[in-house]
């Protein structure tokens, strides 16, 4: 196997472009997925009629392969009048997929906040919104952060699936270089290296956040 550095170098703009798009989709998708997942968890908790339909939606999302969800969204969408650009479909699908997992993490977080801590707030006259912002969210943040970080890191690898619907992200760009120049193994190797490095960096950042947050609450 002769690894052609010159070839890689000449295609660096494409690779970096794909890398940038992967980062953007990952970060935007995670932020949107966390927001949506949080909203879903709050609605399931506070609006009795929504619990079952939302639970069903989340179950289906978590119980089916991301690849198939993307196919359905991208190729099936037009049949119901939803024709999306690859990037839009990819980002939307990625957000919905992540939201299902994030909502489950938040649901567990809500359940872990003792009922008495909420009642103490009610007795002191805090409104439901104040209890959510001032008691529940900060208290569960410490509890759910490890699971959140873990999920965010896992989702980074899932972005590779978007290449299937021709989103020009990292996997798509590097695979293209590989097949155009018949350097499949080298390109796959390079790709693995890229993801691994990103996962390590993301994991490290997550651990820093955990340490910082844990300092708010000394160990018992």
């Amino acid at each position, binding site marked *: 196997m002769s690894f052609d550095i010159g070839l890689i170098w000449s295609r660096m703009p494409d690779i970096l472009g794909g890398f940038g798009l992967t980062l953007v989709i990952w970060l935007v998708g995670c932020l949107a997925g966390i927001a949506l997942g949080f909203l879903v968890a709050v609605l399931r908790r506070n609006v009795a009629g929504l619990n079952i339909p939302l639970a069903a939606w989340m179950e289906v999302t978590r119980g089916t392969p991301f690849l198939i969800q993307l196919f359905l969204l991208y190729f099936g969408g037009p049949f119901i009048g939803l024709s999306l650009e690859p990037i839009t479909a990819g980002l939307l699908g990625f957000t919905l997929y992540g939201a299902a997992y994030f909502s489950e993490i938040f649901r567990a977080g809500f359940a872990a906040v003792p009922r008495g801590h909420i009642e*103490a707030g009610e007795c*002191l006259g805090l409104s439901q919104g104040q209890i959510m912002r001032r008691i529940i969210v900060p208290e569960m943040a410490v509890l759910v952060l490890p699971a959140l970080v873990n999920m965010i890191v896992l989702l980074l690898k899932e972005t590779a699936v978007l290449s299937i619907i021709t989103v020009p992200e990292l996997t798509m760009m590097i695979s293209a270089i590989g097949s155009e120049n018949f350097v499949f193994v080298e390109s796959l190797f390079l790709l693995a290296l890229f993801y691994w490095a990103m996962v390590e960096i993301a994991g490290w950042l997550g651990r820093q956040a955990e340490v910082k947050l844990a300092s708010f*609450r000394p160990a018992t």
Partner: protein
Amino acid sequence: MTAAVIVKALRKSFGATEVLRGIDLEVAAGDVTCIIGPSGSGKSTLLRCIAFLDQATDGYVFVQGEPLGFAPDASGARARLPDARVRDVRAKIGMVFQQFNLWPHRTALGNVTEALTTVRGIAPAEARERGLAQLRKVGLAAHADHFPAQLSGGQQQRVAIARALALEPQIMLFDEPTSSLDPELTGEVLNVMRALASEGMTMIVVSHEIGFAASVANRIVFLDGGKLLLNGTPKEVFGQPRHPRLEQFLETYLDRGAAILA
């Protein structure tokens, strides 16, 4: 003068089980009322219904003459009051729980000042002063910056009392405030409560501390099977001849307490 708390024909069911079976109770301003009774007799439920943490199935609670949670409407039917009204009336009540229920992510001072700033809209600097004054009152000013996890159980419960007092309630409810404490830590909490009683605070205390009940309370209420079996001064309730159910309760549950009264 209207009583501080009036409980009228209060009933509470969980599913098919009726836990409170028609409770009538009046607590005069400045009274310390101790509620005793076997485990499962409905003491916590009664206190939680008074504070509107549990919604009674029937009956009313009046706090300084104002209905809390439910009121008879024009036609005399029982109607739920709006949340804002509930909050207004509940502000007269401070509640202390068996499990302290301090917020673990806030310091002792943060726990005490939280409602001052978010509910009352008091500026942080003044809330801090008031919070420290309350902590001083329970002997914990030096621990203002400690997190609950850094405090003993007795200290946590004293912070919880300070947190409730910060809003200057007219009535304090205590649900077994010393039951989750190691025996050597109950004294410091009972002392704070004793001081509060001597300042004239109206208190309703669920407690198994019969010694405290006999010495501090001026009313003793004995709850049995969801009914208010006895209601009188400590002399009337604990004196001879004793009601057979109370006698049985004191023997079964409270060897220690019975010895104090013997």
